[in-house]
């Protein structure tokens, strides 16, 4: 008895569809959360602009 014998008889063929629904649901909840509640994210959006300008302090010749 191989694993595939067991699985073949377990009637699992529809599982892929179940997973599809789960993934779609999780994804849609991310969408919903973002649009209902996306809290203040502007500081995060500014991260790439903040990096070198403010941080640079001195220059070393190497």
């Amino acid at each position, binding site marked *: 008895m191989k*694993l*595939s*014998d067991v*699985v*073949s008889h377990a009637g*699992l*063929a529809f*599982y*892929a*569809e179940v*997973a*599809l629904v789960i*993934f*779609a649901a*999780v*994804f849609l909840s*991310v*969408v919903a*959360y*973002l*649009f*209902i*509640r*996306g*809290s203040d*994210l*502007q500081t*995060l*959006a*500014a*991260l*790439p*602009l903040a*990096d*070198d300008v403010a*941080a*640079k*302090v*001195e*220059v*070393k*010749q*190497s």
Partner: protein
Amino acid sequence: MESRLDRFTYDDAIVRKFVTATIVWGVVAMLAGLLLATQLAVPQMNLGLPFTSFGRLRPLHTNAAIFAFAGNAIFSAVYYSSQRLLKARMFSDRLSAFHFWGWQAIIVAAAVTLPLGFTQAKEYAELEWPIDIAIAVVWIAFAVNFFGTIAKRRERHLYVALWFYIASIVTVAVLHVFNSMALPAGWLKSYSVYAGVQDAFMQWWYGHNAVAFFLTTPFLGLMYYFLPKAAERPVYSYKLSILHFWSLVFIYIWAGPHHLHYTALPEWASTLGMIFSVMLWMPSWGGMINGLLTLRGAWGKVATDPVLKFFVVGITFYGMSTFEGPLLSIKSVNALAHYTDWIIAHVHSGALGWNGFMTFGMLYWLTPRLFQTSKLWSQRLAAAHFWVGTVGMLLYIVAMYTSGVTQGLMWLAFDKTGRLSYPDFVETVVRIIPMYWVRAVGGALYLTGVLMGSFNIFMTWRSRPKTYEEIIVEAAPLGPDNLPKRAEPTALEKAGVHVFGRKIDYFTEANWHRLWERKPFKFTVWVTIAVLVASGFEVLPTFLIRSNVPSIASVKPYTPLELMGRDIYIAEGCYNCHSQMVRPLRAETERYGEYSKAGEFVYDHPFQWGSRRIGPDLARLGGKYPHLWHVRHMENPRDINPQSIMPTYAWLLSDDIDFSVVQQRVDAMAMLGVPYGDAVLTAEKTAREQASLIAREIEEQRGPAGLGGKQIVALIAYMQRLGVDIRTPVAEPSSPTANANKQGASK
């Protein structure tokens, strides 16, 4: 306070290295592409040499474009932006160096082995097993270096670009490991552990997700970092970028089967792939719009700044390809487009438009900074590159659309009497040759642009200072994590109600997500789980549920000689031009014969379904022509078919079969579960016998004598076997391994 600041430098030397490699390999990849393009217009451009023939060079082109050009571009972006976003030097300079040199060594190994015909024959995963192992090792070094940098970061929040990098690093590792599983049968030879439908499924799960997690997510990371930098304003909507990220992780991973519509893949898998692909359209466009709107109010800059020009067109092409992809994954559209140049148009709008232009936008922004020259050598040359590149790309893509739709329609066309309008395949080839010329011109223009860019960057490099300044940066180390505080107890809670209500509130306040963003480990684990779960649900049923691959009793293993012939077919890369998969469409069964069944491929390690029909399908080739026809056709296809664009394979008539490896190969197949029975003991002898039999038959057909030990005979043995089993009544001995076959069948 001051004393608590850390002082450190960024490692830009490593970025300079990756930038140089990007440019060098970009030119190599595109030169190879241009040679291939001309080969399809003028077959003599194959030069009559094994190493320069189309089937061997095409994998070199694709691998160089993806892993060498785009790969080094990704690493440039990751090494430059991660250090700055994390406010930390890379974790280990040694690992950075190991990553860089290791990756270049892998590319060189690819450039040597592929033209020599060492290949696993799975598209974009052709490299043989020792190189595969090297890839895994280098990738792990990269991952350790990257996650190590995250661990010692000085900025708690992970900017969205970093999420894209994380997802890419993790997923590419998973894809590479699972798809490359192979059993070695020599130092540079191996057989995929999967066969037929399962191998195809694995391959396109890999192939598609390589597009997603090698050519899309890292470039989105690049976009979300370098576009705001160049535009000097934050991304239009951070919200949208989060959405963009999760949609790719949750949806993209499912879309692979759209590469296998109407094949012997189970119907459910194909439908699933289609649905998820269509779902991808919206989030992808969300990403495109997000990118373009970041430039709101900065359009004036676009007119003058070549960096932004490249980004705008790059992002627009991202939008085009991500609209076209879902369109192509709709089955009825796919029936027309699959196997044609439409797909080539699609991938090049992605590769040249999105990957290429984003890369050059980034390079033009980076070089003055990396080489500390304050500006690019010539803005005008960069603008010229932009225009030449854009025109070249448009020519390329329009030519391939035209060619693809034309050939697709010709394949499907019936005349009034119900017969195929173009029964002779070569007619459909001749019709598109003019388009191949236009494509070659377009490609040459694009390459010209790239050469202009390389020159510009080279000149910028020449005016670098004698020694690079090292900029010392200061930032505070991460203190104890100040988690976003749970809301002050509300009135309700004060009244003693609702612990549960508070939890819901916590959830909807989205604090959990912000927490995640601060906890890279958790974040990585969840991304990995999402990827693994989706892949498992999609891929495993084809392995574990029998009804997905119904077996066919008359299908037998290849004889040892046929196996050797199949290995030649693989080494020459015939699959780059020929499919072995008749789809259940009337136009195809009329042209090629009975449609292909999943059970026919159970001994095909690896599968050879192909993805583009530059030549006709070969699934039902066995018995169609006498041996001698094949000898003459392989020696020079134009002797038989003056308009053919197939390369000549004259060396197959003079090169010897290496009988000493036959046993080893059959043993490897047997280990993979192919039922060879007793034949496994006498593989070499059986192979020699069958070879002399075929050689004698060729002589009897008044062909050349003395081919008995030559490669052509093995190849012919294989070609004459294709599609034969399904016509054979069960248990009728038809080949030297008949005994073994009987045993196999009785199992």
